[in-house]
């Protein structure tokens, strides 16, 4: 099996509007693949198709050799695909700890009866989840945050980290990160770069949407570039950086964000 995730001719239309068309690429296991492109190019739509927020209009999503397009979101999570959201979607009134625990739901065995009866097995499982939760909060750099605070009261950058912890709680094989450093300064971005690399070293494959080019160029093994719902380029960060089409559609001056 050469690729963990394989997208084959994915198309998505909303009414008459074509958001994605003819998208095909592969994500090899263990790699960090970046998806870049102008605003409205279809990057988040692609994440929504892969995680079955909505089905593709054409084509198929193959994960670990199995067609998963058509399956519901929770089934896809159970197979090992989780994500974060560009417009952060935490359970804002639940605590920091609870948000991560929820992420683990699809890996737990206790059902309603064991939960109601508080059986020994159920209690042991919950203790295990809390330990795991603390490890994850530690991993994403939130060990200093009060676990009993409500998630909505955290500053934006910490909420992004919490979303990553929740996504990792399901022990995914593939995690989709949608702009993980939006709203972070250079130092914080450095931290998240370290975090992404640690997650990769744990054997997790990563699909990354990000506009911070310093992060994308450093973190990604390969890049896929979108514009107007189509793939316009694919290759190593170095090759992409010099691709005239990409420069015109997305990067502008070779220096990136126009910092002269």
């Amino acid at each position, binding site marked *: 099996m050469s690729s963990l995730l394989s997208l084959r001719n994915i198309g998505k239309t*909303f009414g008459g509007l074509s958001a994605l068309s003819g998208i095909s690429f592969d994500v090899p296991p263990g790699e960090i693949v970046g998806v870049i*492109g*102008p*605003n*409205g*190019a279809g*990057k*988040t739509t692609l994440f929504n198709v892969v995680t079955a927020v909505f089905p593709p209009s054409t084509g198929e999503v193959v994960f670990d050799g199995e067609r998963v397009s058509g399956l519901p979101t929770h089934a896809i999570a159970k197979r090992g695909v989780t994500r974060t959201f*560009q*417009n*952060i979607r935490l359970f804002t009134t639940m605590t920091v700890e609870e948000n991560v625990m929820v992420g683990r739901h699809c890996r737990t065995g206790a059902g309603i009866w064991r939960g109601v009866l508080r059986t020994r097995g159920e209690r042991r499982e919950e203790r295990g989840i809390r330990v795991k939760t603390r490890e994850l909060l530690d991993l994403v750099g939130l060990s200093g945050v009060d676990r009993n605070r409500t998630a909505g*009261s*955290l*500053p*934006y*950058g*910490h909420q992004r980290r919490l979303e990553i912890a929740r996504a990792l709680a399901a022990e995914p094989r593939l995690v989709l990160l949608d*702009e993980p450093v*939006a*709203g*972070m*300064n*250079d*130092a*914080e971005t*450095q931290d998240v770069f370290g975090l992404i690399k640690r997650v990769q070293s744990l054997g997790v494959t990563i699909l990354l949407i990000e*506009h911070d*080019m310093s992060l994308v160029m450093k973190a990604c093994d390969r890049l896929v570039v979108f514009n107007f719902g189509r793939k316009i380029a694919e290759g190593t960060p170095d090759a992409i950086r010099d691709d005239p089409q990409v420069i015109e559609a*997305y*990067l*502008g001056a070779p220096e*990136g*964000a*126009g*910092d002269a």
Partner: protein
Amino acid sequence: MLEVRGIETYYGNIPALRKVSIDVPAGSVVAILGANGAGKTTLMKTVAGVLRPRSGTVFFLGEEIAGLPSHKIVRRGIALVPEGRAILSRMTVRENLEMGAFTRRDARKADRDMDRVMERFPVLKERAGQLGGSLSGGEQQMLAIARALMSAPKLLLLDEPTLGLAPLVVTDIFVIIREINAAGTTILLVEQNVRQALKVSGYAYVLETGKIALSGPSNELSREPRIKASYLGQ
């Protein structure tokens, strides 16, 4: 134009701002820098009347506005582009912009401003009839800025206007910030792109755990070793 004096804002019992004072002179661009959790957004929300300070005063054009409800603050000429956009997702792009002009009484001028913002953000014109929620993240950010401009503010509060925007558009936004300022609007800017923020602003404050840790003319701050170490990655 805006004078913030010793404000303290709390979330429950947690102090988010401790005796913060800033000045925003008329016609200027002032930047607020700082790490996540430093209190930047809290400061913006307090000025806009979304949060009420526990103590301290906020003067706008010589009048106390701390404690006023936000719609009255908007009417006096302050508009906030909130972090995370907060666009009205079930209204169309055009309706979002109309809501921005809700407090205005000069309909004809508002129509002209509508044409102007559509010109500035062509993608909004293209999508005028689409629901706000159907826009991509970056397009929503543009809509949030455009909506704030529709109230014809004297003071524009921009809380991370480039969040989620593609590199080319980030460059555009800073050009637009300069244009808006040149057209006479004063700007208070929170921005993670510190290099650009220091370039576009005349004066900047650095917040650290709810307090002003550093302030000065932006060109001097950009040479300040502490700024370089914390934000410019040098």
